[in-house]
């Protein structure tokens, strides 16, 4: 199976956000909002950290 890094990240974020939302919130509305928040946070933080590390000589 060949997924790009971003695709693998997005699938990972989607699955984890779904479980987190269902575990931590009780109503469907809260679950949806929290799930979207976690999903977007995963993507944003990963992209931000990626760009921060970009100039580092690794």
């Amino acid at each position, binding site marked *: *199976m*060949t997924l790009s890094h971003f695709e*693998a990240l997005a699938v*990972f974020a989607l*699955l*984890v956000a779904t*479980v987190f939302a*269902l*575990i931590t919130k*009780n109503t469907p509305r809260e679950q949806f909002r929290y799930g979207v928040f976690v999903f977007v946070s995963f993507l944003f933080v990963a992209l931000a950290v990626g760009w921060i590390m970009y100039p580092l000589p690794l």
Partner: protein
Amino acid sequence: MEKSEQGLEPGSNPEPVQLRRPLNLVATLAICSGGWLIPGLSHMLLGKWIRGLIFAACVILMFVLGLGMHGKLFNLVFEEPLQIFAFIANVGVGAPYLLAERMNLGVGTMTATTYDYGTTYLWVAGLLNYLIILDAFDIAKGRKP
């Protein structure tokens, strides 16, 4: 943030939360064991079918994707103490782990570009199942709806 007279945040649900009657310890542990063996089963046994099915789909899909990405499943090897943590994470997924081990899957191809992602998927699938079991434990004990 502004709060109402009852101390609730605006938009929050003021209705009392319905908690179930706590189950005894044996029943709770049996349900949790079932949830470990088959992801999502504990919630299904507690009557939360949709939630259980979603949990099962998420954990099993993550596990299968991890295997598909040539991730590695770790065994219990006492000579390599740090591998024990990886084993604990892997074994959290329950029956799929045992099945994959029996079928000699999860060997791990380090030369594959997705090896690290696959291994992480396999770890997180097990760790998520632990969280799901804890959630089922709280529900069974009447601590959350």
